[in-house]
């Protein structure tokens, strides 16, 4: 995973691969190729390092109805019922 870090003016400070601490003057981070836009980094003043702010994750939409296997079983049952087997 390649990440880019930007300062508060939007200037790119660093592009790196792997889990490395962001530069101390970074204000935003973004995954290369991520179309959702950069995340804001919040500074942890006590440590003097930026800390990651969790991205707001969309609420997963629960899948309704039967699973793939259950649908296949239902289809087979319907075929069997229609053929009288």
């Amino acid at each position, binding site marked *: 995973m390649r990440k880019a870090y930007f300062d508060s003016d939007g200037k790119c400070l660093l592009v790196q691969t792997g889990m490395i601490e962001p530069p101390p003057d970074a204000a935003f981070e973004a995954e290369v190729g991520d179309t959702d836009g950069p995340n804001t980094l919040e500074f942890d003043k006590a440590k003097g390092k930026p800390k990651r702010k969790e991205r707001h994750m969309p609420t997963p939409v629960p899948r309704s*109805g039967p699973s793939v296997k259950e649908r*296949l079983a*239902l*289809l087979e049952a*319907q*075929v069997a019922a229609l053929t009288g087997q």
Partner: protein
Amino acid sequence: MIRWVPFEQIGIRQLTEIAKSLLAQPEHCRLDKADIIDKLEAGFWRLFEWDDGLFIVHTDNGQLVIDAMTASIWHRSLLADDLKRLAADWLCDTVKTTVFDKRLADAIVKIGGRIESYDVILPVNGTGHE
């Protein structure tokens, strides 16, 4: 008017119609049930339904392929319009089907298509003598 049914919404009603369509196909070229479910789940094939039936379609190199279809009440002009719209949406200039239904062939002709071939299935007596 047809409506697209996402995989998550495919339930017993649609599965019953798919089963009917499968049984309308000759056994030698009948679609595989697991294959249908897999392709619908993956989004390669799409299921559309209307009030009294459905059809399953996919596209293949500019062809709109009808894999399955059922209908109890037949509205040829409505189906023809729907097919035309789908083909246009997906930039298809040909409709291909293995569904053995003359009514569907009529609808394809209505939108300017032509029938290039029919498979004719004859029951054959196993003994060869009658």
